[in-house]
């Protein structure tokens, strides 16, 4: 088999079958941990540690019932809502602030634009550790530690420079004639943004929203640092709390909770997989 796209040469059928078998085989190995996680979450406690069988012999929902009942002081839904509140807040913040900044960088003229844009590009690469401790001190001074603010507020200040860049790229690809037409019709920069750029920017906004949601939902480091009261815990933090307390018999509920934590990402993925994958392909989002 050649390594090139060979549509033009129409290779014979058996080669194709082998190819599909190989690809699906690799995929099964790759996705095994996820399949295993889901299936284990439906195993009764005795089966969790005793068998290697992938499918539960005696499927049960008891692990799920247990986590809805309570992990620590709260049921899993409590943590779920906390995670959701932070993620939705982050999405709104990023979509608003990044599109505003991107319009300025992509279309408007102002003094200092070059250096500012350059600085923004550098911050994409900046390890967050260099700003971590002073940021923590700032939020502590403002009495915001142990609230959701440190996790949401920065998003309203366009700190996720990557998305600004993504939208700048997109805005630059839009035909300038549209702006000019709107300007002739009496639109100022605000009108052009609202009536021309924003509607056309939709694909980039959706990509930004989906990735912001998933990254915030999965985020562990910032939540670990800023939230320390179990009432404020998100799903990742509650899971971590769970592991440290769990004995082997609690593995089932722990996996049930893991699955619940992955569920929204799975759903987003199924609904938007094209958007996600194309977003990576065209912009190099790290995923």
């Amino acid at each position: 088999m050649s390594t090139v796209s060979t549509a033009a040469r129409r290779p014979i059928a058996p080669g194709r079958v082998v190819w599909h078998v190989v690809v699906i085989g690799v995929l099964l190995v790759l996705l095994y941990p996820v399949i295993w996680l889901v299936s284990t979450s439906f195993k009764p406690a005795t089966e969790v540690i005793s068998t290697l069988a992938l499918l539960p012999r005696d499927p049960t929902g008891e692990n799920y019932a247990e986590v809805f009942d309570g992990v620590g002081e709260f049921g899993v839904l409590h943590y779920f809502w906390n995670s959701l509140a932070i993620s939705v807040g982050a999405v709104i913040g990023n979509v608003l602030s990044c599109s505003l900044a991107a319009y300025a960088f992509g279309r408007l003229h102002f003094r200092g634009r070059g250096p500012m844009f350059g600085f923004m590009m550098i911050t994409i690469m900046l390890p967050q550790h260099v700003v971590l401790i002073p940021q923590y001190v700032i939020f502590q001074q403002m009495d915001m530690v142990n609230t959701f603010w440190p996790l949401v507020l920065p998003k309203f200040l366009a700190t996720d420079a990557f998305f600004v860049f993504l939208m700048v790229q997109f805005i630059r690809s839009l035909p300038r004639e549209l702006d000019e037409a709107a300007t002739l019709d009496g639109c100022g920069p605000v009108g052009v943004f609202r009536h021309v750029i924003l509607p056309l920017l939709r694909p980039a906004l959706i990509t930004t929203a989906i990735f912001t949601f998933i990254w915030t939902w999965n985020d562990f480091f910032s939540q670990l640092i800023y939230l320390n009261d179990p009432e404020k815990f998100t799903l990742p933090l509650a899971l971590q709390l769970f592991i440290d307390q769990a004995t082997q018999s609690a593995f089932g509920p722990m996996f049930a909770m893991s699955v619940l934590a992955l569920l929204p990402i799975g759903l987003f993925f199924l609904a938007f997989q094209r958007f996600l994958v194309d977003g990576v392909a065209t912009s190099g989002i790290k995923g």
Partner: protein
Amino acid sequence: MTQSVLSRPEVDAPPPPPTARGGRRRRGQGVAYLFLSPWIVGAALLTIGPMVASLYLSFTDYDLFEAPTWIGVENYVTMFTGDERFWHAAWTTTKYVLISVPLKLGLALAVAMLLNRARKGVGLYRSAFYAPSLLGASVSVALAWRAMFSTDGTVDRVLSSIGLDLGGWVDQPQYALLTLVALAAWQFGAPMVIFLAGLKQVPRELYEAAAIDGAGPARRFLSVTLPMLSPVILFNLVLETIHAFQAFTGAFVVSSGRGGPSDSTLLYPLYLYQRGFTDFRMGYASAMAWVLLAVVAILTALVFRSARRWVFYAGEDR
């Protein structure tokens, strides 16, 4: 600011200035800053300010409760000469980066080559291979990893059944880091998607010409695919390296935040976290952050420098 539409869009290419209507241009300035104001506030208060502050804090002794006291370069001196765990964490991270990044990119390229053909189902397969990149950063998956690589976990049992009785990987210092490497490599989907996009750009005629000249598949890979793909390889290499230096969640979950067994999973960011948020040595942690930044910046610069020798831009020689 000249008309620079010729430059590639991803570099800072200012759009052409508006036609000579100075009045509109000046009016636009204020509005521009208005649009930019959230970003400016964020950049000043959450990036530039904190960077300066953390540089200052790195020269102090600071426990978050009492005012920082200036101690000069002591944090740095202690780090380099008196802190074995620092060196251990640095070495562990080096191993982690050196193994996981090439492994991840290798897998990404291999699977991208496998998927790079016009067949039914390719889109679906591509998405499925990408899925771990979205899931892998989560605590859930790290937890599954911990369970699968523990004593009597799936991996232990499978290996035992073929006579490799290694025991649980996460419990043994010589293997624990490999579980994190495996977790990183598992997420090869994102660079794979980028490689696939790159492969689509390689002109078919090049392969045909090479084939006519008698080049076999291996030769074509080495002489056509790799050079044509080198800008994408550079991009993925830089991105994944920077990313790998900051790996945290997996190490934290697998070792319950301790970096064990025997500090074998004590990646640099985890040690930084421990120093800052467990020992409350904020000055020391800030110094560690600046060392991390310096190392990442120098490495990135070196990679870009070396790129002149191995990255081939198709447009250049035309």
